């Protein structure tokens, strides 16, 4: 009999009941709540006269709607200029107060993007099941937690029952073997994976990321990779526990302490796939072949290396692909065979649950240091993922580097990743963005998103168009110093 995958282990540890009809009840250890997908769930509870099953399993923070300018943030909720956003943020506060759920409110230094806050607090632990009404909940799988996004009806279901109705997924392993080149980051790895397997390649699967290049990543990098599993169609992205995982968690506020810590660590060490575990599908990429990535279209699979060019839709064999590519180029205002380095930019966004952690800001700051944002760039903004990331970055002087280079340094939130607040693109504007989705209108009506790593976004801000971050002299010098 073959061994178990990490996903199999996590599933079995949380299986409350397997039903004859193929569905199962899975126990949920942690639910993260935010203002956009929770109000209707609380309303549903109220209408049915139900109470949350276990309060301490829940942790809430507003993130999607919050403004990121100090002017609006200084006054807390009352400073939110958009009245509709204000109602939503206030409703989260009211619901958390009414039911007694812990919330990091808008100006709490621990507030931030749910997927940055959970891990940062140690509220995401290996061996947990983690859900949130947000598809990027896959992020938490970097800790060997079974984590995925759910809809609002399911948020209500978890609040009321501490369980989720689920069906077991299939197992996929994506191996990235070898050593990543200089200037090639976790973001480039995951974009290359999506380019390889497509936006529906992982549908129905839990993807475990493995191989020496994945093992070499920091927790921040691993979160970036798992975060975008959903962009490959997989609700779940996972990485097994190792020393990097355990070192990250030590002394986090929600992490176990003293006597429980050792027991927990011993338990966590087993959260890896067995060496003889069978996967339904295995995909392997060579790290050395991955170069810095840039998306050119309106789906994350429409991506290529910085040395590449925009494809010619007429060269596509599949009729549906031909039509999709034609439509994407029309929307993006790009020409077939145009060089990626010839794409000019209007705005630059460094932030989002994909790339707003301290390591992301350090990488962007390395490139920005001593340089100036190009005159042709209308706005270049850096939005830290949480108040604590912001504080850490300021302690390291990163804010000064960004501000001196001409970037705006903002308050934490989801910001221009989905543009629910005032941070958005205008029609036709091209943006180098460290976020996760380049869908039509995602960053603003008619906006044109190019997904890149933080270093590539910073380099694009300075050049005014895409450049290969590997060719920048400053970047080489920084790496040489470290080596």
């Amino acid at each position: 009999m073959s061994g178990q995958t990490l996903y199999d282990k996590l599933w079995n540890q949380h299986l409350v009941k397997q039903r004859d009809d193929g569905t199962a009840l899975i126990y949920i250890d942690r639910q993260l709540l935010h203002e956009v997908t929770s109000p209707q769930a609380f309303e549903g509870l109220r209408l049915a006269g139900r109470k949350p099953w276990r309060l301490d399993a829940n942790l809430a923070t507003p993130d999607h709607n919050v403004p990121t300018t100090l002017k609006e943030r200084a006054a807390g909720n009352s400073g939110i200029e958009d009245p509709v956003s204000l109602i939503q943020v206030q409703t989260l506060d009211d619901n958390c107060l009414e039911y007694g759920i812990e919330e990091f409110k808008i100006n709490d230094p621990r507030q931030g993007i749910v997927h940055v806050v959970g891990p940062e607090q140690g509220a995401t632990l290996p061996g947990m099941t983690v859900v949130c009404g947000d598809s990027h909940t896959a992020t938490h799988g970097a800790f060997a937690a079974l984590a995925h996004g759910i809809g609002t009806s399911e948020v209500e279901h978890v609040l009321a029952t501490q369980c989720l109705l689920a069906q077991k997924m299939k197992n996929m392993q994506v191996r990235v073997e070898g050593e990543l080149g200089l200037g090639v980051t976790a973001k480039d790895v995951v974009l290359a994976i999506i380019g390889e397997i497509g936006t529906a390649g992982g549908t129905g699967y839990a993807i475990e990321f493995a191989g020496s290049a994945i093992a070499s990543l920091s927790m921040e990098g691993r979160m970036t990779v798992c975060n975008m599993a959903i962009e490959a169609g997989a609700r779940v992205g996972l990485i097994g526990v190792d020393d990097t995982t355990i070192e990250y968690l030590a002394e986090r506020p929600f992490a176990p302490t003293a006597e429980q810590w050792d027991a927990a660590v011993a338990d966590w060490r087993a959260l890896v796939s067995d060496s003889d575990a069978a996967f339904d599908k295995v995909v392997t990429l060579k790290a050395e072949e991955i170069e810095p990535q840039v998306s050119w279209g309106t789906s994350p699979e429409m991506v290529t290396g910085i040395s590449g060019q925009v494809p010619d839709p007429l060269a596509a064999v599949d009729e549906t692909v031909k039509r999709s590519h034609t439509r994407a180029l029309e929307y993006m205002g790009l020409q077939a065979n145009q060089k990626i380095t010839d794409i000019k930019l209007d705005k630059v966004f460094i932030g989002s649950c994909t790339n707003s952690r301290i390591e992301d800001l350090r990488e962007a700051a390395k490139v920005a240091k001593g340089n100036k944002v190009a005159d042709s760039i209308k706005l270049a903004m850096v939005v830290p993922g949480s108040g604590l990331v912001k504080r850490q970055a300021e302690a390291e002087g990163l804010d000064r580097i960004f501000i001196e280079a001409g970037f705006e340094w903002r308050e934490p939130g989801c910001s221009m990743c989905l543009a629910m607040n005032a941070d958005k693109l205008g029609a036709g504007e091209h943006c180098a963005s460290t976020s996760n989705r380049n869908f039509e209108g995602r960053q603003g009506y008619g906006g044109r998103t190019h997904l890149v790593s933080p270093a590539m976004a910073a380099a694009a801000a300075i050049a005014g168009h895409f450049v290969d971050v590997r060719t920048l002299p400053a970047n080489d010098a920084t790496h040489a110093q470290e080596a």
Partner: protein
Amino acid sequence: MNKFERLEGLVAPLDRANVDTDLIIPKQFLKSIKRTGFGVNLFDELRYLDEGQPGQDCSKRPLNDGFVLNQPRYQGAQVLLARRNFGCGSSREHAPWALDDFGFRVVIAPSFADIFYNNAFKNGILLITLAEEQVDQLFQEVESSEGYRLDVDLENQRVTTPGGDVFTFEVDAFRKHCLLEGLDDIGITLQDEDAIRDFEAKHRQARPWLFRQSA
């Protein structure tokens, strides 16, 4: 939840792959704290020529006449015919809420994204996965024949075309049961309350750190 048994409904074709939930309902409409009223903003960026705002009177907005749902022949459609990977991206349940509010009860496509699939069934919308060739055939038929309707029979898991072709489809037993009966699955889960409590007690004993609050 709405029951779904059988429907004989007008079909509208949306010939586009990878339709994401941002396209189904753009983010500015997610600021609502209600479950209803999203229908007027379904496919907002495709349906109208201007940028939509929450709370706006959509009857005065300029329509994109080229968009399929604005064409007179598709008014009142209850079955949406779509392409592969329909509903990808964001987990927003506002997407099925908008489809439902607009009047769609069935979506037929070669494949659906996982989270959207769950969300749709929880709102009484039946998603039917058919083979690419079958979907191609339906696109050809609906585009060439005005007033094209399909007979969708959940009990027997069959889609019947006006020409008499019958396509069978798969749907798991639990989702089918809930849809046929219009059941609220929280109520069903709470029938297992004792099993959940037993599991929770054992789980807490085995891994107490999972139940810890911040210091």
